[in-house]
């Protein structure tokens, strides 16, 4: 069985976009180079259907989801801490941010990397859309793009709204 048909097998019944993306980049790799590190990682770390379903629901049901190491109160990694601080600086109500501690769940820790096609934790989802990790959050925080996104999605109050409340 060729690597490509193995991948296709692994993707059966999975219309999810990230997996389609994964398949296309994988095939490109096979064409471009004989050695494909993706092949083994697809087959070894393929996340379970139940975890994928749980994650789908989690990111759809919650406005903001943060996969992190530790908790917002006690982050256990500097990058996770930085993302929590960015949310605080932006005035996002942390009680409304769904946080999941990957250190408490090994399947989640590995599964979320596969799910988002992103190799590291923390990971941020806003309104069901994958935003990125710490570097991207910091980048967007500094450029003003994060504020714009949070305002657009109604996750922080605008200056006018704040004035009205006062």
């Amino acid at each position, binding site marked *: 069985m060729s690597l490509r048909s193995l991948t296709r097998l692994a993707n059966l019944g999975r219309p999810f976009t990230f997996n389609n993306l994964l398949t296309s*980049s994988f095939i490109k790799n096979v064409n471009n180079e004989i050695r494909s*590190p*993706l092949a083994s*990682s697809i087959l070894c770390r393929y996340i379970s259907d139940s975890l994928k379903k749980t994650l789908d629901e989690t990111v759809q049901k919650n406005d903001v989801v943060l996969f992190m190491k530790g908790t917002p109160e006690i982050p256990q990694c500097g*990058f996770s801490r930085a993302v929590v601080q960015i949310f605080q600086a932006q005035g996002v109500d942390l009680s409304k941010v769904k946080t999941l501690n990957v250190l408490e769940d090994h399947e989640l820790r590995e599964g979320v990397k596969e799910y988002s*096609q*992103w*190799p*590291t934790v923390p990971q941020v989802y806003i309104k069901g859309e*994958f*935003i*990125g*990790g*710490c*570097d*991207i959050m910091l*980048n*967007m925080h500094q450029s003003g793009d994060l504020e714009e996104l949070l305002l657009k999605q109604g996750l922080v109050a605008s200056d006018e709204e704040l004035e009205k409340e006062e």
Partner: protein
Amino acid sequence: MSAGITKEHLEQTLRDKLSADHVEVIDTSGGCGQSYDVVIVSSVFEGKTVLQKHRLVNDAVKTEIAQLHAFSQKTYTPAQWVELSNK
């Protein structure tokens, strides 16, 4: 791999796979080779969003990142890099 990923290996891989004009790899691990900050300047980033750029980098060093504890990246197009250097 207990020896970790070397700075040189990471630098070369990024240069090769992303046709980068400029790559800076800073070892922030204190010697164990598990934590890096990288700056990459490449024309392949032209017209891409930050997320797309980071995904390109993540794909290029996928196996390496899996072995690291920390990996932080800054990505620039050649034009952005020139602008930044002039500041």
